[in-house]
């Protein structure tokens, strides 16, 4: 027997074990990649979503809050094999096959694990949850988890606040800061979008152990590396939520906009786009359904008219601008008079209603004389035969009122409207030498002009302040929110003439219907022709005359004269804001109940009623109880513009 026979096995053992120790040294001590791999395996980063900031109105009332909802959850693996889904669905007040359907749905989801909690019913309201709760008691495998969604105690302001929605892939791709994760909710429109970064807060991170089946196994290092979530900022807005709610009520069954601004600060007090919607319906389980219905509505309740409704011609409200520019540029003074006999009769004819003649500046505003402004405009544009230069001067002067450019309000999606440029007219007239008469419709706020309601309200502020305005804004001024002051470049004395004239509009002019007892108020009516049907009813106003507290612009689409709808609605809102009470209940009632829906193309009355209060409300009939003094004769027979006389674009 060979001597090495005894040692062979030992040599093998030593060799193999040495190789093992070497291998262990390599994978445990030298190669550190396994440490990272183990971490990735077992430790997951959990995101803690912070509470979103609330919105508060100017008086400190909560307008947008977070309300608890309940998700009914369960871990599929915990269900007994012979789970009686039928009894369960019956007790839970669900369709008998809901369980089967939901399970099929869940299994299809990416990343589904039967060991991980799954949502069985999502976003039950507190009331819905209360109903289910009792049944739930018999099924310990199911449990409720509280989540938060937006809630709007006043049910108004949907257009301003905007809404939240699940982030989409496009937004995720554009998210340079890598803040968002799929499934996060972001502001889609309105303040929610504009102030997303301040409202959302900062997400927290929690590191937790998970086993191979995805079951949580406790915190990593007892939370030493966790980051606490930071709740979103509560933002104070300048809105008066009660005024907002009241304005929305007044605009019920009408299409249009109301924007009220505190002229001394530029703070938006109310901001209505009618028809509107209850923002509470855009949260919770029925969000999708509601949203689809709103999107399909021919009256476009999701369209934010005050900042996007740029096709509105300003109508006669625009005359004040032309008057001011005329005074400033010296083509007229306050004593200059023009004759008006049924309108302007130059190269073209612009009709006007019956009033005394000749007309000076004050009376021209008071009675809204077309002829006067045609003359002013022609003097402005055709002066010295320098049409092009004059038009550019005029253009610049108008733009200083915030027209034809964005006001810079802190809401997303504002449009700049349309203030046609000289180049535009060059192009349209193709080599023809155009002059004042060619574009005469601009004199009375018609033609190509498109002014959004926010621009209109802003313009009212400029008048109220006698020469300047602040950038309109909804979130209150703070170091983070700078507010700019804009000068119109018109001397204050001209404004003083205008303001006096606008007071006369209310006291004894086209807007007497808007007179509020005990309030010195200034206003200007407008009636804008438009290609969509009956004229738009427009009104701008501010009050009190000295130290104005509120400036307002109201548009009611296809409602006729400025004085029929827009002026009374504005007046009620001003009274509500200044006095917090209404002294003219009959007028209020008529405005609240008046419906103009039958006037809108595409509107289908879901339940045609036999009687409809205010149905014939397009022509207000002052009743005997009305507090309006019947001194107003103007609204009745006035027609600003005969559509046949000026070529509409």
């Amino acid at each position: 027997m060979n001597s090495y026979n005894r040692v062979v096995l030992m040599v093998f053992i030593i060799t193999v074990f040495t190789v093992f120790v070497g291998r262990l040294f390599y994978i445990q001590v030298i190669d550190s990649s396994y440490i990272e791999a183990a971490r990735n395996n077992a430790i997951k980063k959990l995101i803690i979503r912070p509470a979103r900031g609330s919105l508060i109105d100017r008086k400190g009332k909560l307008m947008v809050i977070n309300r608890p909802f309940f998700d009914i959850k369960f871990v599929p693996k915990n269900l007994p094999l012979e789970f009686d889904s039928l009894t369960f669905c019956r007790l839970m007040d669900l369709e008998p096959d809901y369980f089967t359907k939901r399970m099929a749905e869940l299994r299809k989801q990416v990343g589904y694990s039967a060991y991980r909690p799954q949502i069985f019913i999502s976003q039950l309201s507190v009331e819905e949850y209360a109903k289910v709760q009792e049944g739930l008691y018999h099924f310990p495998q199911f449990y409720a988890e509280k989540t938060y969604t937006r809630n709007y105690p006043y049910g108004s302001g949907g257009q301003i606040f905007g809404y939240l929605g699940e982030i989409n892939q496009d937004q995720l791709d554009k998210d340079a800061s890598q803040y968002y994760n799929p499934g996060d909710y972001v502001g889609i429109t309105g303040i929610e979008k504009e102030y997303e970064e301040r409202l959302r807060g900062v997400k927290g991170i929690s590191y937790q152990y998970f086993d191979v089946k995805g079951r949580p196994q406790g915190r990593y290092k007892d939370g030493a590396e966790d980051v606490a979530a930071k709740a979103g900022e509560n933002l104070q807005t300048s809105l008066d939520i009660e005024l907002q709610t009241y304005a929305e009520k007044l605009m019920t069954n009408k299409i249009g906009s109301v924007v009220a601004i505190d002229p001394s600060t530029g703070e938006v007090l109310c901001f209505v786009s009618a028809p509107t919607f209850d923002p509470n319906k855009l949260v919770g389980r029925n969000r999708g359904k509601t949203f689809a219905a709103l999107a399909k509505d021919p009256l476009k309740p999701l369209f934010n008219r005050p900042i996007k409704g740029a096709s509105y011609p300003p109508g006669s409200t625009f005359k004040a601008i032309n008057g001011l520019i005329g005074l400033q540029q010296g083509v007229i003074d306050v004593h200059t008079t023009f004759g008006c006999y049924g309108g302007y009769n130059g190269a073209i004819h612009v009709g006007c209603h019956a009033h005394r003649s000749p007309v000076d500046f004050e009376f021209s505003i008071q009675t809204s004389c077309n002829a006067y402004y045609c003359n002013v405009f022609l003097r402005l544009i055709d002066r010295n035969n320098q049409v092009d230069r004059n038009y550019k001067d005029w253009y610049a002067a108008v733009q200083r009122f915030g027209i034809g450019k964005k006001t810079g309000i802190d809401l997303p999606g504002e449009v700049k409207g349309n203030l046609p440029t000289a180049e535009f007219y060059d192009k349209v007239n193709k080599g023809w030498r155009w002059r004042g008469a060619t574009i005469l419709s601009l004199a009375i706020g018609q033609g190509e002009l498109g002014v959004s309601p926010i621009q209109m309200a802003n313009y009212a502020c400029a008048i109220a302040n006698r020469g300047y305005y602040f950038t309109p804004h909804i979130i209150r001024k703070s170091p983070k929110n700078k507010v700019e002051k804009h000068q119109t470049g018109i001397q204050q004395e001209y404004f003083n003439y205008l303001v006096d004239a606008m007071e006369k509009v209310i006291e004894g002019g086209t807007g007497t219907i808007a007179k509020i007892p005990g309030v010195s108020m200034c206003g200007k009516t407008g009636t804008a022709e438009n290609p969509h049907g009956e004229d738009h009813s427009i009104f701008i106003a501010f009050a009190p005359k000295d130290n104005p507290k509120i400036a307002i612009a109201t548009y009611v689409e296809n409602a006729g004269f400025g004085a029929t709808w827009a002026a009374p609605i504005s007046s009620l809102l001003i009274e509500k804001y200044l006095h917090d009470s209404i002294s003219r209940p009959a007028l209020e009632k008529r405005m609240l109940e008046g419906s103009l829906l039958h006037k809108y193309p595409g509107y289908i009355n879901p339940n045609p009623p036999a009687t409809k209060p205010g149905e014939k409300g397009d022509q207000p009939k002052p009743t005997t109880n009305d507090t309006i003094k019947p001194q107003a004769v103007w609204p009745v027979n006035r027609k600003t513009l005969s559509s046949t006389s000026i070529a509409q674009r």
Partner: protein
Amino acid sequence: MAGKQENPFKYIDRPTLILMLALVLIGWVAIHAAVYSPQMGGPFNWEHAAGRQAVWILTSVFLFVVLFSMDYRLFEGMASISYILMLGILVATIFLGKEVNGAKAWIQIGPVGLQPGEFAKLATCLMVASYLSSYDVRLENQTTQLISAFIILVPAFLIILSRDTGSALVYASFIFVLQREGLSIIYLVLGLATIAAIVLSILIPAPYLYGSVGVFMLFYVLFSRRKKQATITAITWTGASTAIIYGVQYAFENILQEHQKTRILLLLGKIEDPSGAGYNVNQSLIAIGSGGFLGKGWLNGTQTKFDYVPEQTTDFIFCTIGEEWGFVGSTVLIILFGLLLFRIIHIGERMPTKFGRIYAYGVASIIFFHVLINLGMTMGILPVIGIPLPFISYGGSSLWAFSILMAILLRMDAGMRSTMR
């Protein structure tokens, strides 16, 4: 029976006993850590592997004591009977066995399932020792070699039939026993050469292999001085290589099961699949590798505790040790195994009888092969072959079998030392 029997416990080999107990305790602690969760309660909970292992440990101690109290001279006589009985059980298992993880290797007796394969090693070990120690048997004899091979390969073959190929591999360890008893070392070298050839056959496509063998032989003949003899040698070797290459490739394609093929290909780096078939090894490496030098500490391992490593109480129990005790702990375990094996060889060499020595070598070889295959698998240097780590892995059959194996060895040692005195 001559002479009065002395108390055998007095002569028990203490170092072996201590090493064995240490390993069993390390195993039990590791099993507890592998399934640990704060909610599970203590380590004696029957619901958990550690609790059940405690029962296996206590019953093993009982078995050990019972066997140790027997007359050591009985074991040699029991060899053939137990071997034949075992073959019968293995055949029965093929037909009556319960299928677990694709292998029909379990027999259900009441509440416990047993793996006859674990005990077959023991019976085979006794049988080999008994045959080789019988009068007039010399391993230089071809008949003896054939009979030995037959004794070893029959149970291995039966185990393959019950689709537990991994366990069958352990029977290859008897080559060390035969080698110790005088079988030429050529066989061991040939065995290793065959493994190398098999690996090459799988790794390299057949035409290249045939080509390189042909070219090699051609050069051998060309540069040889005695052309005639060289040609004969070359033809013989070419034939043999061709047979091996063809045989291996045939076996690989037709005999091995799909999962075994995948495992081998994975190990040889032919395919890569960390989420599929390579998952086990990958997770095992992550667990061990993340342990670092000192480990994460007892019960602090995440990979085994949270089930990332499959079979973490049985075949992959070493992962828990590697993860929680690190390089230091793992090395200590390997050293403990080394010491135990050396001690068993030492016991074997001091045995006065051939039977005793052969049996001891059998025990050492079986344990060595288990450690080799199991640790090699968890460290990713050998294919995934599901066999337990002796004394450490969870499982009644395995622990019982190794306890009996050791009890018989220590009893014989104690008995002979007591009578020699």
